């Protein structure tokens, strides 16, 4: 067989392009020559070097983990940081005798040698022999020293530095910050797709709280380092190869973005300690009336540091079996009946729609009869003729039964929703539930039944199908304090990444102003807010207020509303039975939602729920302590501002 190449003298073909063909062939030959010369250079001139290198050494690439961004409070105090730590690893590829290594290492680290062998074998099956297996994390100084010594005799053993996430305030901020842990096998494809990052085994990810919501910002970018290792996995002497060493670039890891929260660590600690002191289970959220969250407590707490170090099955069982549910973020993950804290919202609706006015007195007995059923006040004596402000002050049920009956569900629901109840606040923390505000339409759709008047009565005192979160109530009461300006709860103050010159700060966002548009169906006149504010003030400062304990000395004051929310409904004879005698799950939840003012100017809103505490009186002291502390901390500041 012969291969014919066209000669350049053909003149009857190729449309007189023969000189073009000649150029094309020259072009091809020229580049082929370049490629062949390159092969010559690599394989013949430098081949010996490469051959020696390839037989004795391997070039290894390793990840350099990026330090995670720190999390700070509003004053720049550290809430989450990184600490250096050491771990012992075994790389199966280089081990010679796994059993003796396991025996010696087991002695040094006080571990069962079989457990070590088991770990290595499991990883061998799953990840292959090149993947270093973590034997023990968080080596003590002593252990680190022993591993370094053992390394000399045992190939494959190594002590590696890694970054440990540390939460200096432990459980105080557990629910808000969340925690970090290694990505699971199952999460790798899911998160890679969702976040458009290539996740790998052993990557650290944020879970829950700010660690999860801002993981993309916090995590930074991994770097790469290269080492030339010999056939035993030990780092080879430098300078052993010149032909290849020229262009290995180390990639420096980029630290993550720092996150500054709106949290006030002092206030947060105070709030946390308050729960501790009063031995209560529940949640607290404190915010400025413009929505900057200052404190966020869910009690009992969990320590996020435990997650960073891996949770033992015992601890996990303890958490899961605890009926007080320490892993639950009760501020947003659980919704509750608001109880009487819903009444001010009903009052606003009633005032705006003209069913009552500031000066109209309504007779409120101890019972209210609707059809055959008798509805009870929380007192057995009744309240007599009272105004709306007094009804709020004394938390009269009968007053609100009557108002609720007149308003009907949809009017109440409209204003409640306008104030942010029954919908997610979209605070960037994992697991928020929307709560629920019932309407007649919802009832028809859900149960196929029309709305019963009795349900309006129930709804007016915040029972029945009305469900809210602590954060929603804090938002709604802030709006009442702000005369109808509803602000979005905000947890992040700014993001800072000085290396990439990236700064972003966040300002309070007003969602809507209910006093802005008289045409709107959720419009509320400013004077009605004044009436309700008066009522809330009297709850604490009036003669018959339900939270008189929370009274402060002028010019400071607290205005708020208590609420005792039944977790189930009771028949009349059961109703006045002492709550303490019931089993724990059936005891009432206690609410107190209030704002603290300085010279009639609202400064801070606090919502506290104490679970199964029987009475709102359990929540009142916690709120008081937090607001009092806030004014103590900022007192001088306020005074000075006042003078100037």
């Amino acid at each position, binding site marked *: 067989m012969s291969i014919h190449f066209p000669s350049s003298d053909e003149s009857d073909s190729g449309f007189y392009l023969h000189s073009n063909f000649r150029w094309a*062939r020259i072009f*091809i030959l020229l580049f082929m020559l370049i490629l062949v010369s390159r092969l010559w250079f690599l394989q013949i001139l430098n081949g010996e070097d490469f051959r020696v290198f390839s037989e004795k050494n391997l070039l290894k690439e390793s990840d350099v983990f990026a330090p995670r961004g720190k999390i700070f409070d509003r004053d720049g105090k550290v809430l989450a940081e990184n600490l250096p730590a050491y771990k012992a690893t075994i790389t199966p590829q280089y081990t010679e005798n796994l059993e003796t290594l396991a025996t010696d290492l087991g002695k040094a680290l006080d571990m069962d040698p079989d457990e070590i062998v088991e770990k290595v074998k499991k990883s061998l099956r799953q990840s292959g022999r090149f993947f270093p297996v973590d034997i023990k994390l968080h080596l003590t100084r002593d252990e680190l020293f022993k591993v370094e010594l053992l390394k000399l005799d045992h190939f494959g053993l190594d002590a590696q530095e890694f970054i440990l996430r540390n939460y200096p305030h432990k459980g105080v901020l557990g629910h808000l910050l969340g925690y970090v842990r290694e990505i699971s096998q199952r999460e790798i494809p899911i998160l890679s797709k969702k976040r458009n990052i290539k996740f790998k085994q052993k990557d650290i990810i944020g879970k829950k709280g700010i660690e999860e919501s801002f993981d993309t910002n916090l995590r930074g970018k991994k770097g790469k380092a*290269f080492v030339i290792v010999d056939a035993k996995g030990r780092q080879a002497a430098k300078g052993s190869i010149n032909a290849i060493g020229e262009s290995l670039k180390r990639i420096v890891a980029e630290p993550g973005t720092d996150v500054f929260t709106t949290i006030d660590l002092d206030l947060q600690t105070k709030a946390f300690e308050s729960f501790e002191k009063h031995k209560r289970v529940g949640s607290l959220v404190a915010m400025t009336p413009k929505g900057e969250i200052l404190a966020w407590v869910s009690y009992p707490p969990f320590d996020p540091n435990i997650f960073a170090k891996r949770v033992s099955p015992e601890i996990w069982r303890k958490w899961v079996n605890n009926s007080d549910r320490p892993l639950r973020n009760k501020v947003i993950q659980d919704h509750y009946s608001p109880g009487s804290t819903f009444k001010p919202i009903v009052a606003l609706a009633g005032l705006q729609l003209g069913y009552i006015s500031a000066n109209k007195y309504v007779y409120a007995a101890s019972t209210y009869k609707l059809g055959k059923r008798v509805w009870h006040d929380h007192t057995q004596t009744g309240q007599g003729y009272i105004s709306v402000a007094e009804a709020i002050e004394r938390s009269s049920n009968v007053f609100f039964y009557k108002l609720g009956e007149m308003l009907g569900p949809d009017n109440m629901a409209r204003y409640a929703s306008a104030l942010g109840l029954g919908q997610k606040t979209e605070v960037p923390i994992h697991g928020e539930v929307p709560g629920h505000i019932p309407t007649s339409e919802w009832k028809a759709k859900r149960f196929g039944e029309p709305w019963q008047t009795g349900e309006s009565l129930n709804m007016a005192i915040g029972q029945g199908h009305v469900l809210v979160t602590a954060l929603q109530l804090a938002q709604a009461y802030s709006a009442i304090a702000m005369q109808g300006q509803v602000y979005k709860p905000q947890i992040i103050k700014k993001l800072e990444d000085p290396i990439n010159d990236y700064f972003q700060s966040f300002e309070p966002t007003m969602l809507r102003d209910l006093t802005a548009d008289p045409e709107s169906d959720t419009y509320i006149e400013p004077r009605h807010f004044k009436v309700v504010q008066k009522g809330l003030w009297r709850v604490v400062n009036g003669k018959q207020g339900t939270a008189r304990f929370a009274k402060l000395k002028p010019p400071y004051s607290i205005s708020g509303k208590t609420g005792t929310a039944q977790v189930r409904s009771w028949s009349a004879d059961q109703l006045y039975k002492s709550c303490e005698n019931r089993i724990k799950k059936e005891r009432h939840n206690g609410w107190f939602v209030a704002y603290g003012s300085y010279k009639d100017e609202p400064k801070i809103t606090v919502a506290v729920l104490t679970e199964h505490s029987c009475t709102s009186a359990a929540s009142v002291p916690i709120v008081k302590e937090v607001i009092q502390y806030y004014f103590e901390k900022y007192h001088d500041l306020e005074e000075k501002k006042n003078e100037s």
Partner: protein
Amino acid sequence: MSHSLNLKIEERTPLKRLDWNYIIVILTLQVIGLVNLYSAAFSTSHLSRVFSAQTLWIPIGWSAFFLIARLNYKRILNLSFFIYLANLIALILVLLIGKQFYGARRWLDLAVFHYQPSETMKLSLILFLGAYLAKHKSENLGFKELLVPGLIIGLPFLLTAKQPDLGTAMLLAAIPSSMLLFLKVKTRVLVSALLVAAVSLPLAWNYGLKPYQKNRVLNFLNPERDPRGTGYNSIQAKIAIGSGQILGKGFRQGSQSQLEFLPERHSDFIFCVLSEEYGFIGGLFTLSLFTILLFLILHTAANSNDRSGALICVGVAAFIFWHMLINVGMVTGLLPIVGVPLPLLSYGGSSMVTFMVSLGLVASVSNQRYMF
């Protein structure tokens, strides 16, 4: 040879008309690919299916080859505008509704598989530009004559560059530009093009782009093969090739290729396996085969009985040449790492079929010589 042409016409039956040299060269390259694929794939479990898959793709490729070879390429050329247009629409759709992976939008989800229109555009461009240039007076091209071809090339180039996929976009420009250069462009066009490039590129690089944009450009060039941009892949490839020396380490003896140090060793880095195990001799032999294949295609072009046939062949030659040059250039460390397969050797069904279709086109041009 020109004298013997008339005699040959009578001798040739459809089977005999086949250029056996051409077929044997293609087949040899595929076998070399298979041998190295076997070597690369059998060291690790997750590649074990690669070899058997490729043994299936080769006959599928040949079926496509013969199917196209039996067709009259002129009938394909009559459709070339619509093929080009449909492909262009697909490219626009990619930008609008395309599948996004790791920051680049390149694929259309066709339920059965992910279709990458920029890949088929290479062939569509060869066909349409060939048809266009054959119809219009097109020798020694000046600015005026280059206006329409520039548009034909420019649209898919920009659409692909925007995905972003600069690697493929460059190829989309290089292949049809080779066809234009083959027809010769006026010196002043050439000089001004070079001048514009020489002035605008460094300017754009130094003043037009921010550091992060530069990084992005580098990442476009190099999206998946070397996302780290550290030179790690490139160095492992060089160690593998260099350590092969003159005769190589022998079949399945390449330590670099057998260990998992070579990335993508079954597809884009197959030449490393070849060079490590068969050394300089193996590489030289393979490059020679490529040279012969290219010359055979140019031979068909030179002997085709119309302009369009000649131009298609030149386009196909450029298609194979640029892929080979960039692939071998990148694994030997002459060029940055971009994801370009080595024609006929690299693993991959769609690339095998595409190359075989293009080679089939050349066979069709060759066959038509004997049909009057």
